């Protein structure tokens, strides 16, 4: 059995750790709500852009010629997947959940896939499992700006346009609330304006009322096709941005939950060890008394 002093040391160090974990939990909670607010702020732009997109896509002469980013290819030979994970661990099963969801999705595709990893954890896991990781982005700031995702969106758009890949997907963790989140894989390109169920981060455009949008008459400057050229890449970029923010909110909330659990566990451990320590102290006192009594008895006998 451990001595009183050893137990004291363990209790002290566990208390220290629980202070760290509870601080981390508090920080993560505030970061999660910040990321959530940030993605909420994109709603206005997303809704309007989506409306205009639908109007443009249904214009005669635009829908028929087809914008390359809106055209579904008949022969799908390869795909790209943007995998959004965290840079750090200590977030419970957050990183492994999204990676295993992505793996399941990839194994069902049966075509070569190029992985674009956002986040160190996802990159490492995918490289270790032998996937073709073509690009990795990490060290993104806590509250990323749209400029942080521009290169990512441009990379996949370019790959799609020059025919390197025929489909682009994004795997991210959808934030539901502070205690629940859902790993999700959605299609990014080609963009299907009429099927927003299957679209990435559709919750920000789902409430848009599209009745009559396609019949709305506008004059177009310079022309509907040119407008589509401007809007579609921006919309894709916005989807990547929203996915990233959703994933960030999820990561921070997952870390908050994990750290709260750790703090609770530490508290339990401290209780158990305190009991042990008291027992150990009691035992040592009892032993000392026994020694004294025994010594006194030996003297009296002599």
């Amino acid at each position, binding site marked *: 059995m451990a001595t009183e002093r050893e137990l004291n040391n363990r209790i002290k160090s566990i208390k220290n750790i629980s202070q760290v974990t509870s601080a981390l939990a508090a920080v993560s909670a505030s970061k999660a709500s910040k990321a959530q607010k940030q993605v909420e702020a994109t709603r206005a732009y997303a809704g309007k*852009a989506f409306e205009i997109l639908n109007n443009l896509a249904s214009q005669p002469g635009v829908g028929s010629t087809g914008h390359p980013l809106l055209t579904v290819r008949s022969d799908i030979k390869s795909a790209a997947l943007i995998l959004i994970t965290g840079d750090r661990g200590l977030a419970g099963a957050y990183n492994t959940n999204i990676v295993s969801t992505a793996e399941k999705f990839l194994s069902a595709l049966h075509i070569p896939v190029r992985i674009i990893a956002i986040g160190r954890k996802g990159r490492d896991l995918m490289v270790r499992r032998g996937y073709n990781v073509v690009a990795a982005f990490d060290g993104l700031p806590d509250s990323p700006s749209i400029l942080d995702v521009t290169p990512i969106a441009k990379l996949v758009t370019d790959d799609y346009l020059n025919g390197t890949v025929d489909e682009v997907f994004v795997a991210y963790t959808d934030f539901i609330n502070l205690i629940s989140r859902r790993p999700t894989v959605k299609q990014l390109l080609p963009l299907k304006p009429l099927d927003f169920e299957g679209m990435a981060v559709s919750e920000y455009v789902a409430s848009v009322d599209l009745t009559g949008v396609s019949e709305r*008459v506008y004059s*177009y400057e310079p022309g509907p096709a040119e407008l589509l050229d401007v809007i579609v890449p921006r919309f894709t970029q916005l989807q990547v941005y929203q996915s990233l923010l959703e994933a960030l909110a999820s990561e921070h909330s997952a870390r908050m939950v994990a750290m709260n659990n750790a703090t609770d566990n530490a508290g339990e451990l401290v209780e158990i060890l305190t009991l042990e320590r008291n027992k150990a102290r009691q035992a040592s006192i009892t032993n000392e008394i026994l020694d004294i009594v025994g010594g006194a008895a030996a003297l009296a006998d002599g």
Partner: protein
Amino acid sequence: MPMQCDIVTQERSVFSGQVKSVSLPGTEGRMGILPNHSALLTTLGYGEVMIRPTDSDQELYFAIGGGFAEVQPDKIIVLADSAEHADEIDLVRAEQARARAEQFMKEGVPEDPERYAQIQASLRRAQIRIDVSRRRGHRRAMPGMSVPEYEEHNN
């Protein structure tokens, strides 16, 4: 009759309110929008958006970095790639950015057209921000129809 005007970027809403008129930097040329304008979709270039709100005589200026806009008879929504109100612009930083970009342009990297275009774009952005920022408190006789005059700022 006032109309509702919103300026939003992918990251945030920059302005929302009732306005008397708006002037936009369309890629095909500057356009002034009054209420009851016919429905219009247009792409926007780098430039300034000028707004005359209904509740004040003070015009508001925003520097925007491209995007697009939807105009309806009672509503204008500007979806900008970047947008800043004149008061938010850090004039010193913008000046530094312009100087840096000009320096790059002079030294030149002609063998890399993409890089050159990038620098040119950042020079244009910096110039617009400086112009818009200088507008703080300025009033103009003819609202919103002329391009910014660069000479007056070079003193």
